């Protein structure tokens, strides 16, 4: 064996670990040692964990780098490690059949990684690894060479807008806080991430926690906050663990703490664990929660920059927003602004999920078209079904139809068609998705997560949900549609906070683009065949071979028949679970 250096990187984000990343890691450690490779190559041999690189569906992903030649493997299990070591590391021949395929490269080729640049690349538990990729350079520059106003000016010029949902210009927010005189100011990193399906903030903290800490320190220094909080949900144990570790390391190196880098500036960060209420991501509710109150929003104004935590000027920024900061300082405002569209600069991370082939976490320049995202990066629709719509912005967003696939993904364009960028959820729907059902799903979420403070949201979303339920079981009427639309609009305009104001969006947008599907339900049909109550199962006596599989599968005994003779289905007993449809091998169970 002649290799001079061996580096092995194992994906150990939450997704990687769930797929067995820690077992793979252990296998590498012990088998490299047993094979004497560690001793052989000495310092040039390393195996370490890295954060998520986005394509969790192919976990465990492993990079093997021998003398600067990198090969990436997919779906690795611990029992495959032996062969990797034998053939690739010792024998010098990569194991072809386990290498990632074309779709892995397609997934990555059209992405531009700023926030996720080092996630999946460096060991998130090592501050030295972060420093090795220019980490904390930006903080040093800001603390030693830039006046606070200069830093704020750079962020303003970069055009960075908040990634937490509303897209408020970050530099402008910082400036407002800077101008507020106060003996105490705070910076809060919002890592509550409650949108169902969104996991970019978790991945950033799991994969590169120091970038967020550095972003916070830069903000704190520029507008004069001495205490920071990271509000993170307790359901993210790995992110919390890595965050605590990173904070300790940053304190040891004096990037946090007293007299940071000899500048006389003190700043430290506390961690506040959230209990998983979606509404606690709303900034005023989040502040109440840190203060020990129930997480309920209050009306704005006053805005947190004027009166926030404990009544003091407070900047709240999203994880991804903050993780952009060091890169902007390092590379300049112009560099950042070179990505994106006129009013939406830089990149945005999306959680691409649903019926796409490659689901996962992606980072794209603002302004990339939906078509590129879904068909190039995402690899198209699963099982080559027909694309129907893409839902962006999660429970606060809306859906976008096929004829708008060439739409640029940026704050303005999505808003124009009744959706939002939001926190970056992107759910691809195909012909099997019923749009009424999709709207119902999101409304179930917002209704159960409503804080209960205001009437339109607490009771309004409940009534909306009840109307949708009525429609999906085929009992809706034309008046219900009128009522649905009117109430949705009233809830939107009268609710107190963003949760209630945006909760009707999935309803309004599906009503706008898929009214025909709603109308079909009124006639007792679900075109996507997703609403159980509207389906009728029948057995085609000609095609039935009498194998009896459906009979055994039916939980209510609705199917009867003798062996090798056509079976019969009793509609009275049928509960429409679809078990017969799924089990029949001869396509003789029909569904209408």
């Amino acid at each position, binding site marked *: 064996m002649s290799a001079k250096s061996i580096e092995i990187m194992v994906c150990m984000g939450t997704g990687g670990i769930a797929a067995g990343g820690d077992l793979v890691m252990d296998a590498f450690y012990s088998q490299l040692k047993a094979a004497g490779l560690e001793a052989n190559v000495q310092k040039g041999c390393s195996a370490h964990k890295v954060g998520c690189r986005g394509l969790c569906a192919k976990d465990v992903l492993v990079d093997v780098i021998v003398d600067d030649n990198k090969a990436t493997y997919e779906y690795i299990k611990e029992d495959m490690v032996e062969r990797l070591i034998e053939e690739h590391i010792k024998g010098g021949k990569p194991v072809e059949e386990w290498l990632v395929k074309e779709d892995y490269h397609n997934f990555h080729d059209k992405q531009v990684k700023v926030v996720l640049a080092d996630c999946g690349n460096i060991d998130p538990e090592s501050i030295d690894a972060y420093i090795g990729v220019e980490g904390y350079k930006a903080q040093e520059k800001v603390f030693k060479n830039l006046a606070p106003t200069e830093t704020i000016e750079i962020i303003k010029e970069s055009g960075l807008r908040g990634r937490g949902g509303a897209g408020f210009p970050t530099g402008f927010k910082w400036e407002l806080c800077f101008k507020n005189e106060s003996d105490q100011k705070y910076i809060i990193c919002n890592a509550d991430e409650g949108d169902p399906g969104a996991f970019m903030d978790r991945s950033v903290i799991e994969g590169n926690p120091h970038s967020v800490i550095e972003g916070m320190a830069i903000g704190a220094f520029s507008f004069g906050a001495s205490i920071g909080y990271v509000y993170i949900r307790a359901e993210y144990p790995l992110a919390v663990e890595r965050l605590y570790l990173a904070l300790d390391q940053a304190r040891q190196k004096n990037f946090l703490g007293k007299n940071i880098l000899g500048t006389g500036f003190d700043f430290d960060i506390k961690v506040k664990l959230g209990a998983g209420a979606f509404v606690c991501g709303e900034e005023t509710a989040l502040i109440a929660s840190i203060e020990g109150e*129930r997480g309920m929003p209050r009306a704005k104004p006053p805005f947190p920059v004027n009166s926030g935590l404990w009544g003091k000027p407070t900047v709240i920024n999203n994880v991804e927003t903050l993780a952009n900061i060091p890169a902007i300082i390092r590379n300049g405002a112009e560099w950042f602004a070179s990505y994106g569209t006129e009013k939406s600069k830089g990149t945005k991370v999306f959680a691409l999920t649903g019926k796409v082939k490659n689901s996962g976490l992606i980072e794209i320049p603002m302004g990339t078209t939906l078509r590129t995202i879904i068909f190039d990066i995402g690899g198209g629709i699963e099982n080559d079904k027909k694309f129907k719509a893409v839902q962006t912005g999660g429970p606060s967003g809306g859906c976008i139809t096929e004829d708008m696939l060439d739409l640029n993904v940026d704050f303005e364009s999505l808003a124009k068609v009744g959706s939002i960028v939001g926190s970056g959820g992107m759910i691809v729907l195909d012909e099997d998705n019923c749009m009424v059902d999709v709207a119902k799903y999101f409304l179930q979420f917002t209704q159960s997560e409503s804080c209960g403070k205001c009437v*339109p949201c607490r009771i309004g979303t409940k009534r909306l949900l009840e109307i949708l339920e009525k429609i999906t079981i085929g009992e809706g009427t034309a008046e219900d549609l009128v009522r649905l639309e009117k109430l949705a609009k009233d809830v939107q305009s*009268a609710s107190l906070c963003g949760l209630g104001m945006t909760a009707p969006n999935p309803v309004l947008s599906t009503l706008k683009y898929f009214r025909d599907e709603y109308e079909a339900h009124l006639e007792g049909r679900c075109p996507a065949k997703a609403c159980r109550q509207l389906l009728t199962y029948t057995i085609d006596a000609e095609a039935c071979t009498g194998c009896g599989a459906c009979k055994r599968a039916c939980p209510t005994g609705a199917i009867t028949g003798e062996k090798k003779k056509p079976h019969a289905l009793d509609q009275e007993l049928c509960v429409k679970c679809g078990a017969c449809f799924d089990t029949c091998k001869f396509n003789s169970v029909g569904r209408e």
Partner: protein
Amino acid sequence: MVKLTINGKEVQVPKDTTVLVAARSAGITIPTLCYHPRLKPNGGCRLCVVEVKNIPRLVSSCTTPVSEGMEVQTETARLKEVRATIMKLLLSDHPVECINCRATDDCALHELTMFLEVHENEFTGERRKYDTRDGNPFIERNMEKCILCGRCVSVCEEVQGVGAIDFAYRGFKSKVCPPFEKDLDCEFCGQCVQVCPTGALLGKMWDRGLRLGQEKKAVDTVCTYCGTGCNITLNVQGQNITKVTASERHWNEGWLCVKGRFGYSFVTSPERLTEPLIRKGKELVEVSWEEALDYTAERLKATKEKHGEDTIAGLASARCTNEENYLFQKFMRGAVGTNNVDHCARL
């Protein structure tokens, strides 16, 4: 001062005034439900929404501070629609059984339904149902009637400083309750009952012995329980007190303690002493005030002569005013000649 226009009318108010207060000062009515003038604005009911030029969404006037040049509209068609929707939503989750409710004469929900002319309701659906009754001795809590305005939570926290109740759960299941939904166990001051705009909170002893055909009256008086002298209003029917309330206009701003608010049954108690008693032999015998006072003076004098002034001590009552207590110590020191004087509040 800040200048703004409300419905085209120019209004001038001090800085930090809310739009609602500014409107009311100009004689403009905006319906409210969760707002209470002595509590921090909550902003939850959304009935007080108004339109402000250049703000696309509706804002709650009870929480929004005025700003220079602001142009406010409080009576547009859109606002009427939205307010009606809010009322209908509230009523769709309220047991509209007013005939069986003891708060009909004092219910903001009822009043607003009339004011906003909400006579039909297209919204129906699930209603909250709570079977368990709170077993505390004073306050009846009908949480199905609660509209979650939050006034009780605020008053308990901000005024009473107790924090015995708060919101629990989320979504449609949200409710106000004591910790772990146990029975209420607090000071029972009833501040929450006083501010509740619906029949959700009532005194358990209210309305006992209602009479037919007897005039209802509200009699302003002063609570006799202590020297603080809170103003109270006795709601009476004939000779019968149906409940005690307190007015926000009086110096105690409508706040009372458990005794003043709920401890009124003594007034008509058969065990209540109404005449002085002197023990004659083994019996306590009713006597006139003349006789009682003469007897007391005589006994004090005799004791003082025989055993000396310091064998006598005086204990005053917390139910006396400061002035009465002052006079009492003056009497003990000047007339009786002893410093042995104290007050029951020290016990």
